């Protein structure tokens, strides 16, 4: 949990630093998704409510209207829980993990666009994915190392 708090604050500080200059990755949600995927725990409720409150705080800090990222974060967690359960163990390849991590970057920013509309175009999402790529690759590397150890 401490790691997720640190990630939330780090994401907030990076937004203060580079907001408006570059599209910042959703480090906090990426952390939740990574923990969901990498840690084989039966209890997953922590992920739902951590995503809920993390998203709510993000809304209050950066959007001003609660609900957008709250919904987006919870939706991502729901998607990951469903996908991770549906996909058989031998099908959980690095590509699948990559796509699931990628969804944590794509969906939360899509929710406001879907609800409010607006001018956010494809370039916004592409640049955000590019900036998120290093963190995403680190998560993939850590996951592959862990999978190796388990094997």
């Amino acid at each position, binding site marked *: 949990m401490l790691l997720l708090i640190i990630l939330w604050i780090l994401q*907030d*500080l990076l937004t*203060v630093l580079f907001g408006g200059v570059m599209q910042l990755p959703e480090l906090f949600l990426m952390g939740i998704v990574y923990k969901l995927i990498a840690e084989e725990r039966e209890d997953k409720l922590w992920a739902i*409510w951590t995503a809920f409150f993390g998203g*709510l705080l993000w809304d209050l800090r950066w959007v001003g*209207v609660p609900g957008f990222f709250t*919904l987006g974060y919870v939706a991502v967690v729901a998607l990951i*829980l469903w996908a991770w*359960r549906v996909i058989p163990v031998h099908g959980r390849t690095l590509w699948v993990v990559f796509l699931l991590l990628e969804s944590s970057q794509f969906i939360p920013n899509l929710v406001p666009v879907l609800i409010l509309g607006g001018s956010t175009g494809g370039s916004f999402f592409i640049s955000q994915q590019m900036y998120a790529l290093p963190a995403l690759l680190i998560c993939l590397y850590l996951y592959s190392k862990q999978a190796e150890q388990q094997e």
Partner: protein
Amino acid sequence: MQSHNHNQVTEFVHIIIALILGLFLLGGGANLGISKSAVDLLGAVLSVPEYPAVILRGAFLSWSEWVNNKDEIYVKLKLLQDENIKLKALNSELMKDKIDAGLDANLREARVTLRAPSSWWNEIRIDRGERDDIAEGLPVFNNGFLIGRISSVSLMSSWAELLTSPSLMLPVVIEETRELGIIEGDGTGRILLQYIPAGRGIKPGMNVNTALIGEDVPPGLPIGKIAEELTPTPDGYAVYRVEPGADLSKFYTVSFLSLNKK
């Protein structure tokens, strides 16, 4: 297996609750009146850890603005410098026209009646005095250039101290750079410009004019040009030799500004 299914159902229920809460917040949160207070409170709490990032962002933006606009600032600076030079030149022209008009209106001729060998570079006597509206301090010209000032006046003649005299010190200005200095003679025919800090870009050929001296001598009267830079003084001031516009070694008549303004 049953426990597994139970977990799934629990998760499902929690997700539904979380989504409903999210939708509720989205739909009515803004109208509840608490979200603004919560936003303010959170902003206040986070302002503490965010403070270094705010400072860093400010510095980064200032730096990036400077880098992006550097060329533009240089171009503007160059334009301002050019404009400044043009304005100075225009000001000098206007001043010169005014002085020329004044000189034309009040300039009168006088003949040199004595130039003693013992004080050859110091003073001359001319054949005009009080009756010709001469007064102490008035400028004396030759060939359109200042060569000295009236130092004493009698009824029919006057003495003028020359620029080459060591006791006549006049404030002057370099026309091109607007640097101020003092000229004084060395008693051997040379005129030295002093008290200008070294390294101010003063070059031979630049014009030397009078600065504001007093009511009798207007600023902008031409004296001569910078001839060469001599050895700087130990206290960091440069000394220049001034080549006077008039031939101070050989002249028989001078002009002076009459007090009788027409």
